[in-house]
């Protein structure tokens, strides 16, 4: 392939000791800023972008790529260690990752996240290099009806994570869907459930909801039980991934990549749906399903790979169409324009040197991330040795700082605390957290896309079957449901996987 030669040329031009140093600085800075809760890659890139000004384009790209990957990995780090996801894409990582950390396996979780990110990022970048213009042509044909189908599929799959009590699971799911309704109705411009508070009009930030419910809720729960329960000591685990960890990780890495990349490449795809799909897939396929919810390494490896693959896929619409599909992509678009790149249909032909340099830089940044962060994983894991009261105080401080720093509005801290209380109440009454988060994530996307589809067709529901991909998804869904019914007949009432049910944790605690 001629394109691979061009990429190779870009790599050779880019790998100099000086550039590698810039990449290393970028990765470190990105990671440090990315670990602040509430600061996802978009913010990290925006905050650190000025650092790259004044460098010549190749060095600037490389440092920029380092910051980007560092920021993403920083978000995963806090998800795993502190249960405070920095952005919506690392919410799924927090589920199993934090459980692993509490079981003394933080280093393994961080390592599988780093290696999975590296593999997914590398494969994704190569796919962008080879197929971007072609993929972009296909991607614009995927419209609202196909999204609706995919989200219906995802919602059906949430049934697998409802937990041991269906009723409680559904309550949590609908609570999440209601939270997702808060804010501006895009179609009529009317605010909903905002109670006259202007800050509520722009929809609730999923990060504030997740950090509030995960981190603050947990901190309050622990604080409420401090006197009754002696603190659990987090065991000191081994620093590296063992043979068993490798064996269990490599398939999720590849599956996550396969799920994540297409979602990044379709406009408005984003990382939320693929990380979730990867999580439930791994959960379904896991040999020991009981381990899910208690720290299964597959549940970190898959979503992390999906996250990074979709982040790489994002460059397809960005470079080929000039369309940013995520917040990070918007910041990146502004940055690329600052370097004199004008993304759009002509970019690949008119400024191909810059594109190949950029793609080569992404590969270098990705590699440096692995090289620098893998040895750091055991060090990060030591963070959990901080005594609990101080650790939770630190989490509260950083969570509030993160929530405040986005808009500089004290209201966001109040909101964070409100969701913290909700998280505490959910733990108290045994409502599972995951369905709620899914409701918050999937509800608004489903609504927007459904209404877009119906607005285009003037209310004709038949239009929901108007795209080939939509039909294919519904057929798969129908087959899966039929298969399940048949299996249920053939097999006696089967084993229901236990869930990320806080009640389990409660039992352990007592």
């Amino acid at each position, binding site marked *: 392939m001629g394109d691979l030669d061009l990429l190779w040329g870009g790599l050779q031009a880019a790998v100099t000791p000086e550039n590698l140093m810039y990449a290393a600085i970028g990765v470190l800075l990105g990671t440090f800023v990315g670990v602040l809760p509430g600061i996802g890659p978009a913010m990290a890139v925006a905050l650190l972008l000025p650092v790259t000004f004044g460098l010549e384009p190749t060095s600037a790209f490389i440092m920029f790529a380092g910051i980007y990957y560092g920021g993403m990995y920083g978000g995963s780090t806090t998800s795993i260690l502190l249960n405070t996801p920095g952005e919506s894409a690392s919410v799924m990582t927090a589920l199993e990752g934090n459980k692993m950390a509490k079981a003394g396996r933080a280093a393994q979780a961080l390592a599988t996240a780093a290696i999975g990110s590296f593999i997914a990022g590398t494969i994704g970048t190569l796919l962008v290099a080879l197929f971007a213009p072609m993929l972009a042509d296909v991607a614009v044909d995927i419209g609202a009806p196909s999204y609706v189908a995919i989200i219906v599929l995802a919602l059906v799959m949430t049934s697998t994570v409802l937990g041991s009590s269906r009723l409680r699971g559904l309550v949590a799911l609908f609570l999440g869907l209601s939270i997702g309704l808060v804010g501006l109705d895009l179609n009529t411009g009317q605010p909903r459930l905002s109670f006259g508070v202007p*800050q509520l009009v722009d929809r609730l930030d999923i990060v504030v909801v997740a950090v509030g419910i995960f981190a603050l809720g947990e901190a309050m729960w622990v604080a409420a039980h401090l006197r009754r329960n002696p603190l659990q000591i987090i065991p000191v685990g081994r620093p590296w991934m063992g043979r068993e960890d490798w064996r269990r990780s490599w398939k999720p890495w590849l599956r996550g990549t396969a799920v994540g990349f297409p979602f990044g490449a379709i*406009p408005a795809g984003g990382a939320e749906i693929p990380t979730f799909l990867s999580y439930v897939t791994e959960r379904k396929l896991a040999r020991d399903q009981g381990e899910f919810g208690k720290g299964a390494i597959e549940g970190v490896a898959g979503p992390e790979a999906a996250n990074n693959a979709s982040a790489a896929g994002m460059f397809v619409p960005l470079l080929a169409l000039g369309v940013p599909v995520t917040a990070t992509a918007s910041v990146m678009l502004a940055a690329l324009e600052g370097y004199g790149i004008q993304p759009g249909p002509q970019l690949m032909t008119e400024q191909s040197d810059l594109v190949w340099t950029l793609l080569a830089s992404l590969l270098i940044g990705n590699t440096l991330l692995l090289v620098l962060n893998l040895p750091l994983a055991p060090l990060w894991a030591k963070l959990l040795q901080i005594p609990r009261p101080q650790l939770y105080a630190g989490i509260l401080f950083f969570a509030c700082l993160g929530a405040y720093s986005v808009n500089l509005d004290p209201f966001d801290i109040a909101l964070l605390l409100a969701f913290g209380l909700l998280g505490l109440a959910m733990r108290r009454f045994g409502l599972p957290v995951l369905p709620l988060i899914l409701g918050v994530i999937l509800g608004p996307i489903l609504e927007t896309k459904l209404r877009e589809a119906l607005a285009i067709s003037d209310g004709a529901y038949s239009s929901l079957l108007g795209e080939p991909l939509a039909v294919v998804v519904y057929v798969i869904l129908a087959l899966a449901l039929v298969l399940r019914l048949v299996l249920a007949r053939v097999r006696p009432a089967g084993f229901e996987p236990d869930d990320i049910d806080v009640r389990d944790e409660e039992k352990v605690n007592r």
Partner: protein
Amino acid sequence: MKALTIVALALALSACGVTRGDDSQDIAMWIPNSPGGGYDQTGRAAVGVIEGEQIIDGTMEVTNILGAGGSVALTRLMGEEGNDHLLMTVGLGVVGSAYSFALDYKLTDATPIAQLIEDQEGVLVPADSPFKTIDDLVAAWEDDPGGVVIGGGSSPGGPDHLFPMQLAEAVGVEPSELRYVPYDGGGPLTTALLGNKIQVGFSGLGEFEGQIAAGELRVLAVSGEERLTGESVKDIPTLTESGIDLVFTNWRGILAPPGISDERRDELIAYVEEMHGTPEWEAALEKNGWIDEFKTGDEFGDFLEDQDARVASTLEEVGLL
């Protein structure tokens, strides 16, 4: 952990804003949407020139206050009564939001400083669209107003929604019968047009330059008084050239909080006037394809009154008010 704390402290400090005494020359500039958006580009361009040319002795700090199409920022501006070290970038979209969110305030309740620029809208179609001229679209509308799927990058009340509504009214088509699909900004609108999901898009043309230059999207008409000057857009006719009596422009300008002294108001206006006279500002206009439409003080205030009435009547027309 130490490094973490340092980064966090640095962030916290940089986020603190400027504490100032009364003799300070510093001025804060609020932007009512996210970095990279239209208000942001205009506001930051103005701040860049004022700082670069040292028109004021102090510094200018830019803060993006997001939320509800500018309503959050406008509400906070009203709460800063008498603060004469504060400016805010506003535009047509904020006028619409003030209605959509039923605010108790209008832009005219603040202190008008200056209108800075005008920005044209364009009528976009995919390359293979049967619509070759704006007349083709009008004919299709007259035939069946709801039969043409149109879209824009703003929710109802925003510029991309107001423009097709006023266009329909100008050609005698009932605005409330149009089938308008709102998209969340220029990006999703681009893909909807490229994928032939909608037939016509209404938007400012800045975000579409690449597609227009590549011939993947065509522009039937621009909405300003005169044609645009850019290489790929200079052959596009205006609406008036096509015989439609409508000039529609998205504009942006600067407000100060209510209740500041007349002397301070005149001082702030003088700063902006000095900025407007620099070659650097001219270069910024050129670079962004903005039209130089500058008016200050009471003249800008009258313009705001007029805009307010126009937006209100359009929203009433389509049943949103």
